[in-house]
């Protein structure tokens, strides 16, 4: 919200610093709650993906069911670059993210003319088209079902990108991208995105070129997906065909909704929760873990439409507001 003195900077310092501290200290505390090295990196990668997804769903109000298209495109191009060009991650990530951007311009241009469920279905269709291309038409390039294997160990010039190095790289990228997301949301550009969600017609009649804002919002969201996809390959030099699949698209939707749509913080929490649940809690639950996760998701949607963030604010209200 615009405050009277319109200070965009100050309100970003505390959340971004907190975010940075929590992530950077993760290797020291994460194992005490059952986490292990490697899972932390994966969580940070998914956090980046979820931030971008929230810009599209939470702020602009467009539910994409095909975001794996951008994650996957970037992952494949990053993998192909590492395999055929150089094991240096900088050109690989750059090409990966650019490929996601190009893909976003194409898909966005074709799908954003529709809203609501039609948009969702169109994105799902495009995502699945790419997925099937990866599996069949392009299998000489992509390795089909087996995925892209035999990638060299990624390097950042002379630094081997393994273990802690990957973790700190992803954390730094995540901090920068979180800060950028906050700036986008707080800017006039972000205000236009929120206005698209609120009332597209009014915005058009206020002299705003709505179609362009929608396309740029979509592309920004895809950049986050692309960065996450590229980092996933740096983390684990193997491109799985599932990176293109609807399952991955669905996962980011669930994370975002679970955490709290339109809060940036919520989807990050949702991403962390999902991966933690899938990899740590599931061990105690055995085969039933998916069932429990499904129940948690349903309970959240029914009782807490605002996700974890709403739960947090309700608890806070109960504690401070007392009888109110």
């Amino acid at each position: 919200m615009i405050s009277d003195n319109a200070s965009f900077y100050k309100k970003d310092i505390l959340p971004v610093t907190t975010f940075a501290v929590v992530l950077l200290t993760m290797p020291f505390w994460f194992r005490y709650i059952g986490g292990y090295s490697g899972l932390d990196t994966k969580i940070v990668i998914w956090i980046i993906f979820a931030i971008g997804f929230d810009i599209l769903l939470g702020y602009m109000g467009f539910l994409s069911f095909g975001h794996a298209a951008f994650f996957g495109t970037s992952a494949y191009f990053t993998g192909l670059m590492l395999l055929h060009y150089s094991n240096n991650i900088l050109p690989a990530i750059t090409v990966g993210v650019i490929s996601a951007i190009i893909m976003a311009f194409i898909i966005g241009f074709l799908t954003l003319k529709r809203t609501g469920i039609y948009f969702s279905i169109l994105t799902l269709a495009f995502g699945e088209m790419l997925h099937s291309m990866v599996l069949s038409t392009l299998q000489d390039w992509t390795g089909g079902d087996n995925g892209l294997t035999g990638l060299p160990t990624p390097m950042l010039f002379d630094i081997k990108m393994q273990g802690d190095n990957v973790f700190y790289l992803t954390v730094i990228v995540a901090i920068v991208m979180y800060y950028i997301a906050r700036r986008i949301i707080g800017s006039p550009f972000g205000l236009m995105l929120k206005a698209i969600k609120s009332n597209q017609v009014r915005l058009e009649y206020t002299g705003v070129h709505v179609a362009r804002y929608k396309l740029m919002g979509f592309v920004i969201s895809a950049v986050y997906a692309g960065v996450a996809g590229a980092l996933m390959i740096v983390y684990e030099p193997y491109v799985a065909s599932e990176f293109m699949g609807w399952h991955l698209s669905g996962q980011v939707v669930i994370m975002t909704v679970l955490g709290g749509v339109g809060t940036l913080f919520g989807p990050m929490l949702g991403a962390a929760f999902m991966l933690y649940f899938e990899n740590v809690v599931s061990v105690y639950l055995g085969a039933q873990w998916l069932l429990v996760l499904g129940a948690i998701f349903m309970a959240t949607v029914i009782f807490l439409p605002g996700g974890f963030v709403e739960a947090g604010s309700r608890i806070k209200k109960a504690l401070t507001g007392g009888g109110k």
Partner: protein
Amino acid sequence: MAILEIRDVSKNFGGLAALGDVNLTIEEGTIHSLIGPNGAGKSTLLNVLVGLLEPDVGTVLFKGEPVLGKAPHEINQMGLARVFQTPAIFDDMSVLENVAIAAYAARDGGYAFNVFETPASAKPCIDLAKETLNDVGLFEQRKVIASHLSRGDKRRLEMALCLARKPDMLLLDEPTAGMARADTENTIKLLQRISDKGGITMVIVEHDMNVVFSLSNYISVLAQGRIIAEGVPDEIKGHPKVIEAYLGGETEE
């Protein structure tokens, strides 16, 4: 001087002639009302003006430039703003944010990738938004979420949204529809003040004759898609064709 010229505009829906050969000239700085029974084609005409509908034939010139075929946001950027029948505002945003959107749109000409805007560069827009809110009497409520406003205040907010763009012409579709008497009186005063202050040309579609006769400099009467009478309020009041159109019942739907 004419600011808006409508030439030979016709529009058919199926076999129904919604507009037939409409010719209309709006003079700069005036308040021009369009009246007529239900189904006379008033709203169709407004929709043609803002780019929502493409007429079958005819031309519309705004400040000498053709309007037809342009997108709604382009027409708005030309200086033609529309106030809707049911207030169209950004419901879940604050009053100030609502108007700030319009101020940014005016400054950026429809699109700008300004994700790293600084507070200093945003200030003129925020100031303009506050000033506009002050003009329409909503400054005190600037932090309220728009959906919490009363209907009269929502209308005011929508006008502020349009005015922050500093338009040359305002199109108002039944600005007092569904309003209580006090709100109607306030709206009349507000429109009068806007017209006096900024010299903004207004085209008003209205059913409430009290509003029409207390505001208008000029009135055009539409019936069955045609303009049947034009003139200053006193000429229209006793015009036999107008009385026939309203009381004859033939055109009622």
